[in-house]
């Protein structure tokens, strides 16, 4: 976790949960895991308050706890979960495009509450939906419709069960998750037994505890099964979308469709973090495509076209079943990252620098003289640009000595681009940019809070007042200069918000690439 990521995490906690939670979060980011009394003494907060904060964070899946070998419970923070919150709007949008408005509302509610019981969330969504439908005069929807959407989300693994807490012998909760089999995560509860509490899949220990306590928690109709969002599944979806989009823009929309079908087929067969999908035969692909899209020979042409493309997304691994093809996920992501970095270089340093960068990417290692020859720019200028890139750490040098004594006059200095290194540097910059944008937006809002509040109040009053002339009078209490200022402030805030979203896109690609890179290193060793 770099310093920049910590800054972003802290700010996200502050923005969404308040000042005190961000203080606790900061402490845990620096020194996790730690027990309760240490947290409250180091952060100088009241113990009761810290307890409340920890409950909230555990509910939102940000903090986990486990038992230390000495017997007390330690709390640790999951930074990945905090950063995932950056992509919540994207998750919601994805659910909307896949399954419709009801799914969108469902997901929004689940994301807001962290862990939620099925019945509760369905109830809330029903209410909201029916309110909206009533005001627009349409017919109400039935509960089974919403339940259907929920089951769809679970079946495609977008939602998963929260695992049961680990219990000690004295029946107290000591640890958060028990890792079970993957299939159990996606098992829907039996809905016909909704109202009965005690005869269900919950382990007996849990039930006896709730019976002994005697109190009936307010929303226990879901039989104590909590659901949460499955982040990895969404990330997989976004990764697939990025790859398909890349191929569609490079070659053709139909090529994109072919690749999408292949990805869908390989979803169930490939392990989560595999760098290459399992091979798929042409017959399978043909069956997976929408029926009238293309004829079989055309499909085969497309496949060979994508294979031969320089981006190396697809590779042919065998001839059985009409040809076995597999997608190189790692290669695809590397290409996307290269394109990303190239655009960064172009926007920062100019297109001549980009030429140098591209030449180096192509030829891997080059001496300075050779670079000047290949790039076809005057020697002085090329040297200048090269050293600008070098000082910003986009390029690195390798020394190859001719003689055993490594004398500088008899050593080759080769320039090269190390993608992984540059990617992590650009990622760091992205986080810094994100943090800057968020902080600036917050300061803008705070500076002009008086004005913005005034405008909101005026609008609220004007909306409730019936008389038109009175309404105009009220709206005129905001002077034209104030109006201008308000417009300017709102535009700035919107721009900053927009930029945050776009930075997040970049962050996603880079993070994915670095994750797969690490996985590849692990596979090799």
């Amino acid at each position: 976790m770099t310093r920049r990521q910590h800054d972003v995490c802290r700010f996200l906690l502050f923005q969404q949960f308040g000042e005190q939670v961000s203080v606790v979060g900061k402490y845990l980011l620096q020194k996790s895991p730690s027990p309760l009394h240490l947290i409250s003494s180091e952060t100088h907060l009241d113990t009761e308050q810290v307890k409340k904060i920890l409950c909230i964070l555990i509910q939102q899946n940000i903090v986990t706890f486990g038992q230390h070998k000495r017997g007390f419970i330690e709390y640790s923070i999951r930074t990945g979960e905090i950063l995932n919150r950056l992509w919540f709007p994207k998750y919601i949008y994805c659910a909307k495009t896949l399954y419709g408005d009801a799914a969108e509302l469902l997901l929004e509610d689940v994301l807001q509450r962290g862990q939620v019981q099925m019945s509760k969330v369905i109830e809330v969504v029903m209410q909201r939906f029916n309110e909206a439908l009533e005001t627009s005069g349409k017919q109400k929807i039935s509960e089974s419709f919403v339940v259907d959407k929920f089951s769809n989300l679970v079946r495609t693994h977008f939602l998963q069960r929260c695992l049961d807490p680990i219990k000690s012998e004295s029946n107290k909760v000591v640890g958060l998750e028990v890792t079970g089999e993957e299939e159990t995560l996606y098992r829907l509860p039996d809905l016909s037994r909704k109202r009965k509490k005690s005869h269900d899949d919950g382990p007996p220990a849990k039930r006896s505890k709730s019976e002994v306590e005697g109190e009936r928690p307010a929303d226990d109709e879901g039989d104590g099964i909590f659901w949460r969002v499955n982040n990895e599944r969404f990330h997989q979806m976004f990764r697939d979308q990025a790859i398909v989009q890349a191929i569609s823009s490079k070659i053709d929309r139909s090529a994109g469709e072919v690749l999408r079908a292949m990805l869908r087929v390989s979803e169930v067969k490939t392990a989560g973090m595999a760098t290459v999908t399992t091979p798929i035969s042409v017959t399978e692909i043909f069956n997976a495509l929408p029926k009238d899209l293309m004829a079989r020979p055309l499909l085969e042409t497309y496949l060979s076209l994508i294979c031969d493309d320089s981006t190396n997304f697809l590779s042919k691994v065998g001839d059985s079943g009409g040809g076995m093809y597999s997608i190189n996920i790692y290669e695809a992501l590397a290409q996307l990252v290269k394109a990303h970095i190239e655009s960064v270089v172009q926007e920062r340093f100019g297109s001549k620098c980009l030429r140098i960068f591209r030449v180096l990417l192509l030829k891997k290692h080059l001496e300075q003289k050779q670079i000047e020859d290949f790039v076809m720019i005057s020697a002085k200028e090329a040297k200048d640009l090269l050293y600008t890139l070098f000082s910003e750490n986009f390029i690195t040098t390798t020394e190859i000595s001719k003689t055993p004594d490594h004398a500088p006059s008899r050593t080759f200095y080769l320039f090269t681009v190390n993608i992984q290194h540059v990617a992590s540097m650009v990622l760091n910059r992205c986080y810094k940019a994100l943090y800057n944008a968020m902080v600036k937006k917050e300061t803008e809002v705070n500076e002009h809070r008086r004005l913005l509040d005034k405008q909101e109040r005026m609008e609220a009053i004007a909306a409730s007042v019936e008389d038109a002339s009175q309404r105009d009078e009220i709206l005129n209490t905001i002077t034209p200069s104030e109006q201008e200022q308000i417009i300017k402030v709102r535009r700035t805030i919107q721009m900053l918000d927009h930029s945050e979203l776009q930075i997040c896109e970049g962050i996603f690609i880079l993070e994915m690439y670095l994750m797969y890179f690490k996985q590849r290193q692990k596979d090799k060793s």
Partner: protein
Amino acid sequence: MAGRGRGRGKNVSFNVEALGFGRGEALPGPISQPPPLFPTADFKPVPFQQSEEYDYMLALKQEFLGNMRKSPFFLQASHKRKDIERYSDKYQAAAEVNGKWKPDWRRLPAELKPRVRKKTKSSIKPSVKVKSKVKLSVEDVSKTLEELEKKEVDQGDEEEEEEEEGGKKKEEGEVEEEEDEIYDEEDIEEETDYILSYFDNGEEYGNDDDDADEGPVY
């Protein structure tokens, strides 16, 4: 190796050409301060990618943040202790409870449960204690009086040996006694808020008849 580490003077041992700059050129000057906080950008940034998707996601994001702020998960800084009670406190406190959230204790460690303090009984207790304390203190006073009397008697025995010290102690004892007596008079006898020595119950009214020679009373 005379030129080793001496920079780009005449005695550089390796081929300077290989580094890319010739002998006559000037190097960039030394850096004497940290880089500026807002460095000037050579190129203007590219405009955003506009699409319906991004606009919708922007709206979603703002809505999500608004909902998080209104939810019970958003902890506001605890209010400062008010110096005086205000009438509006009753209404403000009601507005604060924005959908309280009760965590499911089956999934959380028991140490995180907030301690439930019973407010009602403890608020009555202090007043009871105060009264009893007052009573006790009164009883204590009469006890201390007796003790002091005893002490005095003891001190009287010792006076024959150490008169000065004894005298002092006696004086202190007497003073204390007098004070205690006064204290007793004032607070014990009738348990009213009024200090009895201020009250004149009229018994001494006619006692000054002999002072008629003073002159006329205006």
